[in-house]
């Protein structure tokens, strides 16, 4: 009986310890330093720090397209002190692209909250005669193998969107891979490339300045940033729906209370006008996915989509 009391006391104590989370600084591991993922990680970290009353430190672990960071967090203890800013590459594309991925994007993680979701836009060189998607398809069909589309890397959303476009329209265009999307956009502006599927946030200023022409947005619904811009779905490519996204994830063993607390705080942070404005500045409207369960379901569907797309594209590095 005494033993039971001690055991119960210990259990209560353990639960208490969990309730006290966080008792020490929390680390948010970011796989992509120096870009929008890094910046939004720091915005979220600052908000979490205020909400949790403990320092939340952003630590960048770049390399291998995010694999190093994701693998590191997957193998970290599930105590709520190591978080990952996981992204479309680490959790939806890499599993299809890399045969020896050291982690399982579904089973090794709890998916906490989607933070940023940015549409891609189809932009063309402003001298290209095609003024809309229909004309672009016609142009590509009249000059098979003559149009070039660039992307930030082989297997990036820009590349896969292009391959999906080719497949759905029955056109043939050549993929020109770059090391990042910025130099590709430069070559688009100067006319060396004909089209790119680029992230909305980075191309918006050039679209507005008339340096490139936007033909369509890759999401199912139109974007508030360019409400006059049609979707690919409206333009005849039924069901075309691609976004670039990233969000907070934790190791699979992390207790429910921690996951729920983090999720609540992040969703609350994203709804404060100040943060909303900052995220909008990066081209991200507040994501509609709001619970850990919905986020997991979203990742499952994205993973399935990209498994199909990677197969279509033929990109398969071994």
């Amino acid at each position, binding site marked *: 009986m005494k033993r039971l009391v001690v055991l119960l006391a210990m259990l209560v104590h353990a639960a208490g310890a969990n309730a006290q989370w966080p008792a020490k600084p929390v680390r948010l591991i970011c796989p992509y*330093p*120096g*870009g*929008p993922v*890094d*910046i939004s990680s*720091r*915005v979220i*970290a*600052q908000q979490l720090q205020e909400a949790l009353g403990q320092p939340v430190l*952003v*630590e*960048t*672990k*770049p*390399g*291998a*397209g995010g*694999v*190093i960071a994701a*693998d590191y967090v997957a193998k970290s203890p599930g105590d709520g002190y190591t978080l990952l800013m996981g992204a479309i590459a680490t959790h939806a594309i890499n599993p299809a*692209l890399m045969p*020896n991925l*050291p982690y399982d994007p579904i089973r090794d993680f709890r998916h906490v909250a989607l933070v940023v979701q940015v549409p891609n836009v189809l932009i063309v060189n402003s001298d290209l005669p095609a003024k809309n998607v229909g004309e672009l398809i016609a142009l590509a069909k009249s000059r098979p*193998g003559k149009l*070039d589309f660039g992307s930030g*890397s*082989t*297997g990036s959303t820009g590349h896969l969107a292009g391959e999906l476009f080719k497949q759905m329209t029955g056109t043939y265009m*050549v993929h*020109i*891979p*770059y*090391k990042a999307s*910025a*130099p590709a*956009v*430069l*070559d688009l*502006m*100067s006319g*060396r490339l004909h089209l790119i599927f680029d992230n909305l*946030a*980075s191309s*918006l*200023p*050039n679209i*507005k*300045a008339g*340096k490139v022409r936007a033909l369509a947005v890759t999401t199912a619904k139109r974007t508030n940033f360019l409400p006059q811009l049609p979707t690919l779905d409206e333009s005849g490519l039924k069901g075309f729906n691609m976004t670039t996204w990233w969000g907070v994830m934790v190791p699979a063993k992390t207790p429910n209370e921690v996951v729920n607390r983090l999720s609540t705080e992040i969703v609350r942070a994203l709804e404060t006008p100040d943060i909303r*404005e*900052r995220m909008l*500045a*990066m081209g991200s409207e507040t994501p509609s996915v709001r619970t850990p369960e919905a986020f997991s379901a979203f990742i499952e569907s994205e993973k399935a989509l990209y498994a199909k797309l990677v197969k279509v594209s033929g*990109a398969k*590095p*071994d």
Partner: protein
Amino acid sequence: MDMTIFSNLALGFGVALTPINLLYCLIGVLLGTLIGVLPGIGPVATIAMLLPVTFSLSPITALIMLAGIYYGAQYGGSTSAILVNLPGESSSVVTCLDGYQMARQGRAGVALATAAMGSFFAGCVATLIVAMFAPPLAEVALKFGPSEYFSLMVLGLVAAVVLAHGSVLKAVAMVLLGLLLGLVGTDVNSGVLRFAFGISELADGIGFVTVAMGLFGIAEIISNLELKDEREVFTNKVTNMWPTKEDWKRMWKPILRGTFLGSALGILPGGGALLASFGAYTLEKKVSKYGHEFGKGAIEGVAAPEAANNAGAQTSFIPLLTLGIPSNAVMALMIGAMMIQGIAPGPQVMTEKPQLFWGMIASMWVGNLMLVVLNLPMIGLWIKLLTVPYRILYPSIVVFMAIGVYSLSNNPFDVLLMMIFGLLGYIFVKLECEPAPLLLGFILGPLMEENLRRAMLLSRGDPIVFFTKPISAGFLIASIVLLIILLLPNIRKKREEAFVEG
């Protein structure tokens, strides 16, 4: 150019000279100098860490501080390069070559002053260039496509062989070794991993800073430890702190040439400060009448690359401010900082936010002035650093380097890699092989391959494209001319030898 430039600059200085902006400019350049002096800890990590701090500042103040960190780091990087043969920043690798030799001859003060003056002059000129020519220069950046870049790299690689003193054969071998090391990582076209041996840390290739710190820093320490009894104590023979009249006479032309070369290469989104310093050194070695002194403590070998890397750092803001295209990781962060403040970087910044655009340009000049005022009096202090006994200095340098390399990607693997390159560097010292051509091959190799393959993809496999584009053809012709110059004396010598034998 018309009078608007003056009213624009006046507007800019009005913004830059407000007390709050002056304060943050000072904080930026101070921090930048500090992280520049510490080997390996670079501006990318620092700027990223400070981003949340900038959220509460006005956009212009934030950008002034971040820009200050960037060019402050270029400045500070040369200090550790000269004093302890450690490139604090990747762009100060070249400064090691002659700067450290000058320090060994007791001329550390002169070298530091030369670097400071060269950087300041270059900073002033480059600021003016940005102010006057930013929009038209942005058009130049647009003219550079894959074939132009490839041909520029060819010229650079041919020049790399000229960079070496001593055996041409060894220089070529080192360039080739650098090219091979550059192959490690993911192939851009197919996404296939090359020479990574299943190590995911190698998937993005070997880091340049890691290689440079190993080859220069660690190798230097190992080879110094070898001299048990006759350690160099070059502080005892500090001759003069300030450049003499003769020094001034020798350095002003290299500074001028370095400034213009640096400004030109800085505009190219793929080029930047790093290529600028290598290029300026090579150019100086060719045109200087003291060419034989290069690598042995020639003041020109410090003045030109220092001027070039600072000018390049300044003009690399042109593609950022006018096209919204980042030329390196620091610029990418600056774009992020602008976007989060609600400013979309791009061609419209200049017209829609003139205070921001011109304020930033004016602050660059203010920051450069602050740097020179801060650094000149510090030279005496830095020299004192050399009197620290080696048994204390060496372990602390190794620790700082380890921290710096670790902080690049928060991964212990890089520290291990740096040590391996340190051992390799020691072997090179023994074999009397220069690491500089290896580094250039290492940088240019992957860029060349990427641009060559992209150009060929775009031309659908037709190599004539390199000769039909005028800029590209110009670079290729220059490379051929350089090769002929390089080979001529040897041909002559061979002939003479043949005659003797005959």
